């Protein structure tokens, strides 16, 4: 099964729910009707119908899928429990009984493709052509007769593309890993890495290892986006990069300073390190490329690969964005919650999430000085955070001992787990496995984001260590973690995406390909303005007409004017239209605004400003010895004047 767990779960739901049964039925009605038409008209051979049948039904079905429409209403990507589905199910039940003769159950393949196709439905639906007219209409109404057929054509084309994309999944070669209990008594979390190693091939077995580095720990780590290179940084200044599968060491050196976080930039040629004073950028050979002095006492780093932005936060509590291609500071935000050490980048929309000491999580875009959103997540400081690649789920852990799962599309809490001690580090794998490191333990949950699960999927305990950082390896079933006495790598079956896209991240990349990819990445570098909660806002049409837009603009200007007037920006009509001739409204307006006109208000303001000035000066004067008294020798002259 190439379909992900989420999809298979959805498919199961569809089997049970009435609503989707109705969906299929509707799809079939029109299908059979159309086929009948075709038979009447051309009397085609029955042979070709078998091949045609599948896409045609599917073409109809997704357009009418009520779940998909609910999705379209929300954000066009994924579904959400639909309140009205039951009500609609009733109405469709009636139809079903009417069309009982015509009903045909879609075969397994159709169902599977249909289930898969949902994840390819990007963006809003153009129209919802519910034949019965009962479907909620998320359609764009077009008055133009000329545009109508174009839109219809586009809609059909899209539907084809969705189905084709879903069908193309059968071309994927790799299957995801798994670890499944067979008997009633078996538990997956009881499987140790040694037991696992016995039943793995030699290639995978080599991925289980512990590196003992007891001198400079605890360690933080990062993998490149293709999962091939590992960067480790010891708290006490040890830095090393390696091609971890082959064990080939890249650069290894000691910075003789505290290292708080490490982070790869766009490929394995450059990496950033959060050191005691500043953040630094080193190249693959370990040579220092830049010292980023604007990042003062950084504690956490994050890299936005499509925007080429390095984000950092630190003891100052600020969030800094620096463009690593041209070195400009793109944004500097002050959340104002004190020192900070939790920063994660949402891979779906490149929004930076920061966890604060008061339990708040804030979300940032580089060009907006206010956070996009604030969530109170914990009663104590936020300890760790992880965001899944679809941008749906966020996991946070706090010092209050809880581990919470959030839906960050609507900022709601979904489930809560607890660890024996507050989780120090969290990560979510590509296929949605959640890993938490607490004390000497690493615990991995499966399906923990979608639903509340009772038991973990896998566990590991490394005695007398403290886990400091853990990361899933992209495109591999491996979890690497740094702890107080080195780094470890363990196999977690089913963690990684089995089928990589070589144009996105290629674990088998050659030097030439890397160079080529770098050029392409730079060409496609996005402006920081593209970072928003919903990244699909780009290129979307403004449905308002020109008049409506102008009206809104006018109104906003009027409001602004009223506000300014209330703030005293414009003086009230002190200036009358006294002059004869050579007068115009524009000139009058200019005269009103001119600031060389003296009136009572202005005189008062000047008077009060002068008074304040005098007072300040009085404060600033030297304090005579007599006024200082017995503590005169402790008097700091400088401070007193301030």
């Amino acid at each position, binding site marked *: 099964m190439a379909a992900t767990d989420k999809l298979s779960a959805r498919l199961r739901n569809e089997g049970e729910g009435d609503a989707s049964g109705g969906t299929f039925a509707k799809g079939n009605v029109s299908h059979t009707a159309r086929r009948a038409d075709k038979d009447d008209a051309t009397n085609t051979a029955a042979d070709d119908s078998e091949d045609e049948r599948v896409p045609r039904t599917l073409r109809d079905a997704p357009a009418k899928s009520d779940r998909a429409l609910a999705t379209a209403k929300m954000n066009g990507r994924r579904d959400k429990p639909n309140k009205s589905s039951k009500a609609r199910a009733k109405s469709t039940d009636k139809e079903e009984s009417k069309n009982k003769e015509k009903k045909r159950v879609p075969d397994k393949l159709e169902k599977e493709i249909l289930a898969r196709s949902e*994840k*390819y439905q*990007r963006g809003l639906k153009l129209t919802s052509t519910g034949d019965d007219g009962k479907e909620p209409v998320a359609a764009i109404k077009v008055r133009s007769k000329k545009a109508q057929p174009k839109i219809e054509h586009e809609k059909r084309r899209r539907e084809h593309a969705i189905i084709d*994309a879903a069908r*193309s999944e059968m071309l*994927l*070669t*790799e*299957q*995801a*890993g*798994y*670890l*499944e*209990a*067979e008997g009633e008594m078996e538990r*997956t979390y009881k*499987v140790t890495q040694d037991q*696992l190693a016995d*039943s*793995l*091939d030699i*290639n*995978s077995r080599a991925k289980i290892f512990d590196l003992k580095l007891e001198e400079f720990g605890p360690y933080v780590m990062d993998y490149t986006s293709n999962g091939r290179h590992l960067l480790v940084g010891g708290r006490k200044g040890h830095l090393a990069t390696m091609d971890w599968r082959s064990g080939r060491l890249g650069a290894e050196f000691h910075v003789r300073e505290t290292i708080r976080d490490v982070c790869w930039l766009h490929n394995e040629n450059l990496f950033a390190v959060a050191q005691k004073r500043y953040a630094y950028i080193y190249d693959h050979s370990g040579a220092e490329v830049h010292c980023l002095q604007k990042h003062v006492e950084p504690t956490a780093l994050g890299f936005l690969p*499509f925007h080429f932005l390095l984000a950092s936060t630190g003891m100052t509590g600020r969030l800094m964005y620096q463009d690593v291609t041209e070195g400009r500071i793109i944004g500097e935000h002050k959340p104002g919650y004190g020192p900070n050490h939790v920063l994660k980048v949402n*891979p*779906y*929309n*490149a929004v930076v999430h920061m966890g604060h000491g008061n339990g708040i999580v804030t979300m940032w875009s580089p060009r907006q000085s206010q956070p996009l959103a604030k969530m109170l997540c914990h009663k104590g400081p936020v300890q760790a955070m992880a965001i899944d*690649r*679809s*941008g749906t789920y966020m996991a946070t852990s706090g010092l209050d001992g809880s581990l919470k799962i959030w839906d960050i599309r609507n900022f709601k809490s979904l489930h809560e787990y607890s660890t024996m001690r507050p989780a120090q580090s969290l990560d979510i794998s590509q296929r949605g496995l959640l890993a938490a490191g607490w004390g000497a333990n690493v615990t991995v949950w499966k399906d923990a984001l979608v639903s509340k699960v009772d038991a973990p999927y896998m566990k590991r305990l490394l005695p007398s260590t403290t886990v400091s950082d853990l990361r899933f390896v992209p*495109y591999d*079933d491996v979890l690497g973690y740094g702890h107080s006495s080195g780094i470890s790598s363990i*196999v977690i*079956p089913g963690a990684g*995406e*089995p*089928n*990589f*896209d*070589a*144009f*996105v991240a*290629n*674990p*088998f990349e*050659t030097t030439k*390909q890397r160079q080529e990819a770098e050029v392409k990445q730079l*060409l*496609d*570098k*996005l*402006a920081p303005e*593209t970072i928003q909660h919903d*990244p*699909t806002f*780009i*290129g979307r*049409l403004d449905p308002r007409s020109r008049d409506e837009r102008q009206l809104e603009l006018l109104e906003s200007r009027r409001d602004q004017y009223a506000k300014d007037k209330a703030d005293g920006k414009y003086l009230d009509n002190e200036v009358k239209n006294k002059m004869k001739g050579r007068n115009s409204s524009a000139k009058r307006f200019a005269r009103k605004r001119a600031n060389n006109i003296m009136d009572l208000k202005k005189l008062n303001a000047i008077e009060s400003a002068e008074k304040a000035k005098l007072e300040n000066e009085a404060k600033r004067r030297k304090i005579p010895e007599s006024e200082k008294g017995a503590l005169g020798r402790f008097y700091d002259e400088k401070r007193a004047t301030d």
Partner: protein
Amino acid sequence: MKIKALSRSTAEYTRETKSDIQKLPRNIDPELHPLERAREYKRALNAAKLERMFAKPFLASLSGHIDGVYAMAKNPWDLDSVVTGSGDGELRMWSLSSQETVWRAPEAHRGIVKGVCNIPGGETDRFLSVGTDKLAKVWSRSESAVASDGITPETVATYTGKHAFSGIDHHRNRPLFATSSSLIEIWDVDRSEPITNLTWGADTINTVKMNQTEVNVLATCGTDRSIILYDLRTNSPLAKLVMTLSTNAISWNPMEAFMFATANEDHNVYTFDMRKMDHAVNVLRDHVSAVMDVDYSPTGQELVSGSYDRSVRLWDVNKGHSRDIYHAKRMQRVFCVKYTLDNNYVLSGSDDSNLRLWRARASQRMGAKSNRERSAIEYADKLKDRFAYVPEVRKVLQHRNVPKGIKKASRTKQDMLQSRKRKEENVRKHDKSGKPRVPERKKAILGVTSK
């Protein structure tokens, strides 16, 4: 316990030898492609910028004529050759690939050469020319070869008319040709006198164009602002269309036989359906001076027009504005334009005695392309198409550096049109009769008469 962990063998994902192609598996799961909309937008913007960067439409200026180029004919049987006639009566045949004159007749006519056209069938290098000297002459590159340069070769045949000719066109498959002067004359190539005269109204005819698909229909336009369609089978006119200003040239659509485009004095190009001429099918407006010539591309989807405002414009027949404008510093009033028959180039002849060769798509490059290059171009085109409505992309795609004169004139013209429109609206507003608005496609049409 069922256990399986991902384990990719390097051999499967890397090439064995250097001659192998690299293995690049794809996965189109949207979750693997975050921010795809933003990235595609950025790519579209880059593609648009690259398109404008590579937009170098001008290829060559073919010089040789001493006076302006006023007539041009392309040869449907030979992509390479084109014949031009100039104001001093000279005829030249050009080879487009070598960009030089291959044949010339210095004193082919006394006065202006008003029209040239190729003769189909038999020897495909024969062509006809007419001039203001009341003569129509048949030439052949092989038969009327130049003895020594600078001496006018012998004609194959000469026909003498009664009036100064203004245009000529040959029948597609019969040995007939039509000339225009103050009347339309149909000539049989074997006779010295015209076999038929066609008239409707008494004024000078600007040009005559035979339909090459619906071969018995011909269209003419005259200084009395009329466009007249004739049928050769009945030797009688079909319909007469009168517009507000006169038409300078006509071109029949090679793919849709009933469609034709006209170059009008009122700065616009109109396309008409000959079956229903009470309104234009489309009005193409961008020129700021009279349009002197118009020609369809062989696909029938595009148009090229040359204007008195010293520019050449390229149009999509279904759109209202031009998709590109070509101009050159030394190019004067353009009197004739042609779309080459491979759909890749455009020719313009102008007052400055030069024939200019342009690319039909300014940023397109000829020559063999690798598969990767082609797919990259296709992808870029698709992206540009998709994001064409986004203001940033549109701005890049539509921006053209236009000569100051044209820019200024177009602004003035826009003001004029707007004020005219405003006035019309105001009149309408205060008019109780409630007359319906006249569509733009009907505005320039005074009337149609059918026979």
